[in-house]
């Protein structure tokens, strides 16, 4: 196949970026999207030009490294698939493909198609965990957890932290990402003691990082390669409300004393 790529090139964080047109020739329909880019890069390098920078690692849809807005869709046109799993048989000879980085205030471009997603790590650092030190756990089967609950927790724990939800959202909101962690831990008994504090802290950090608010567009759910559902956002909102109420009453009690 022969494809025309319009690729976003940007030399660095503060540099001005722009589209560069590159032709990809002899693309095998069996290759993945990233293998197609590998081929383009090899050609650029052989010509003494700088290759296109993009994040990737596992190439099996699980590490969350790869990103890319492909013709305006995060991770390309298919549902439930990351860019590294997208295959070129999805395209036709002669197609033009526009490739851009994730765009969001909280995800600044580092170079070409690579963005800085460390805001997600900082959200987890303020509360996305169960505070349990190594060595202090009881026997695992002392805590039965219904299969349905465990399965629901697993559905959201499957988030790969890629940031497609943010890239898809017109407000660049991180609500789907945050709600996935809140719902994973908030549904399990282990997560109860810190449930409210966790939700409060993660939401506050999300705001600090400059992510936008959620206005129910639903683009995040459509873009999520792990098909995490929007109703987790309602779960988060309910939790957040309760957390705010309990915080208020706690501070009132403290005032009483």
């Amino acid at each position, binding site marked *: 196949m022969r494809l025309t790529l319009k690729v976003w090139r940007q030399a*660095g964080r503060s540099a001005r970026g722009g589209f560069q047109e590159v032709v990809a020739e002899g*693309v*095998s329909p*069996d*290759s*993945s999207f990233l*293998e*197609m880019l*590998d081929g383009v890069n*090899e050609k*650029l*390098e*052989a010509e*003494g*030009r*700088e*290759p296109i920078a993009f*994040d990737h*690692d*596992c*190439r*099996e*849809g*699980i*590490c969350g*490294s790869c990103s890319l807005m492909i013709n305006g869709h995060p991770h390309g046109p298919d549902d439930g698939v990351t860019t590294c*799993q997208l*295959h070129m048989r999805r395209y036709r000879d002669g197609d033009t493909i526009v490739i851009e980085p994730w765009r969001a205030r909280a995800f600044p471009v*580092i170079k070409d198609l*690579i963005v800085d*997603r*460390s805001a*997600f*790590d900082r959200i987890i*650092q*303020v*509360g*996305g*965990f*169960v505070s*349990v030190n*190594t*060595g202090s*756990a009881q026997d*695992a*089967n002392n805590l*039965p*957890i*219904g*299969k349905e609950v*465990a*399965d629901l*927790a*697993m559905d959201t*724990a*499957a988030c790969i*932290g890629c940031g497609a939800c943010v890239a898809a959202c017109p407000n660049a909101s991180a609500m789907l990402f945050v709600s996935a962690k809140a719902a*994973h831990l908030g549904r*399990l008994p*282990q997560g109860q003691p810190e449930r409210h504090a966790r939700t409060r802290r993660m939401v506050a950090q999300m705001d600090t990082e400059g992510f936008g608010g959620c206005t129910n567009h639903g683009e995040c759910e459509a873009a999520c390669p792990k098909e995490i559902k929007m109703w987790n956002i309602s779960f988060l909102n309910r939790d957040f409300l309760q957390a705010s109420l309990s915080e208020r009453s706690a501070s009132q009690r403290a005032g009483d004393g």
Partner: protein
Amino acid sequence: MKLDAKIPGGPIETKWDRHRFDMKLVNPANKRKFSVIVVGTGLAGASAAASMAELGYQVSAFCFQDSPRRAHSIAAQGGINAAKNYQNDGDSIWRLFYDTVKGGDYRAREANVYRLAQSSVQIIDQCVAQGVPFAREYGGLLANRSFGGAQVSRTFYARGQTGQQLLLGAYQALARQIGLGRVTMHPRTEMLDLVVIDGQARGIVVRDLVSGEIRSHAADVVVLATGGYSNIFYLSTNAKGCNVTAIWRAHRRGAGFANPCFTQIHPTCIPVAGEHQSKLTLMSESLRNDGRIWVPKKAGDSRPADQIPDAERDYYLERRYPAFGNLVPRDVASRAAKERCDSGFGVGPTKLGVFLDFRDAIKRLSEPVVADRYGNLFQMYEQITGENPYKVPMRIFPAPHYTMGGLWVDYNLMSTIPGLHVLGEANFSDHGANRLGASALMQGLADGYFVIPYTIGHYLASTPIPKVDTGHAEFKRVEAEANARNRSLLAIKGKRTVDSFHRELGRLMWDNVGMSRNRADLEKTLARVPELREEFWKNVAVEGSADDLNQSLEKAGRVADFFEFGELITRDALERAESCGGHFREEFQTEDGEARRDDENFCHSTVWEWQGPGKAPVQHREPLSFEYVKPSQRSYK
């Protein structure tokens, strides 16, 4: 180089308990005065960094990805073993120990393996407490499956994403410590070298992968948990960034490298589709629980699978190994597939493939049940190949997957360089010549959560460690070396890309130091690798600058190290004139083509000592003794 494994005395069941009591402790108030560098945030590194920070040490952690959550451990699918015996099917610490020693073909250290089996029990407790959503039964208790040929159900799993869930558990524990200010995290940072001062590991030289800056970090002790080196084969199931650089550089600074030729070729991967291929995708071994492996009985038969009647199919694993059938260990299954393909019975466009067929399972269990068990894997397969495995059998072929070899460590997980500790896949540790399925996750977490937090304290409490900082001349010297190396890679301005060299090296290694090896090919390879390396240093094209994010330069540095390391793997494979586990030497096989071990001459770990560029390394041996599990010929018939 002196190899003292420091195995504690006494009966094997009490060694670890006794040792924990005998080891010195660091006073709680003093812990924060000690600094620890942890390179790698996979299961081994993240669990170690979090646990040591919880104890109060000052930890700095490093990874080359943009987040610690993306370490390659995330990709593990099938599960993690633990001797919980929740299924009441006869499992025990003793049995897990026995299976691991036997599965490793009697080339692992008994005392370490026993400790691993002991720790396995605590790992599950710890992970559940963190909120890892393991699969459960309707009654709410944990579910198990049998995995990789084990005859008990001791594998815990979280759908087909066990590694992801375990890593997220460890990552969250690490994130908590980062948030509390007890761990300083350095993502997008690559270790380029180890700094040894007065015989002790005292720090590392790294490259900031965003700014390109080379800088140093000093500490009282260094821990490497940088994963395996399967990517020397170019095509493997590992993530693209997996590399040998950290442990290779440590080897060059004096750390012994043990059993580099012990590599594991996984039997169930999606076959290579063409030249463009950049990596191979594993199809979880659990598929062998229900799928049946076969090839046509007639060589070159190119009829579609559904037109080949049962009588004309060769279910060769069931035929050769009636007792274990499709569930024989990985090394056995891989070699059997290679044998069929080499003899002309392979299937698919390249004829390098065998069928993994779910027709009978679907008939027996129904399609929804099969979908419930393997749905995500079937979907992944279809995405990659464009074929629907519910309708046509999967095609699979073996691929490089795991490396049992690594830096030599003693019972305390310390390398031959005092202060340098090595965890997880990066050390040579517990799997001998072959790793059993679901045991790498167990080992990484045992090392990180339950071994290193104790043994590091002992080292710190019992060793005088003078103050040094990164202003020390040795740091400056190593920084200058790292800088010079990058500049020379950029200055070559040759004609061939890094990938093209990597592909050629990988092909050479796969053909000659892969699934089966022989003297003539190994000797040829030992001569060829240095030639290719020389060409690399003359003709590689690395664009861009050293003072910027430069992925070509990153790759070039890693491939340059693979070129040096390739010689060591080959030499080790040549030296080990026996077949054992994943190391199959064609000269040493039984009449029916099974591996023939030579316990008289090779019941040892081979440990290599670097002598300088272009010089042959010196060989040392750690003899292995088996007091509890008596070596026998592994038989799966």
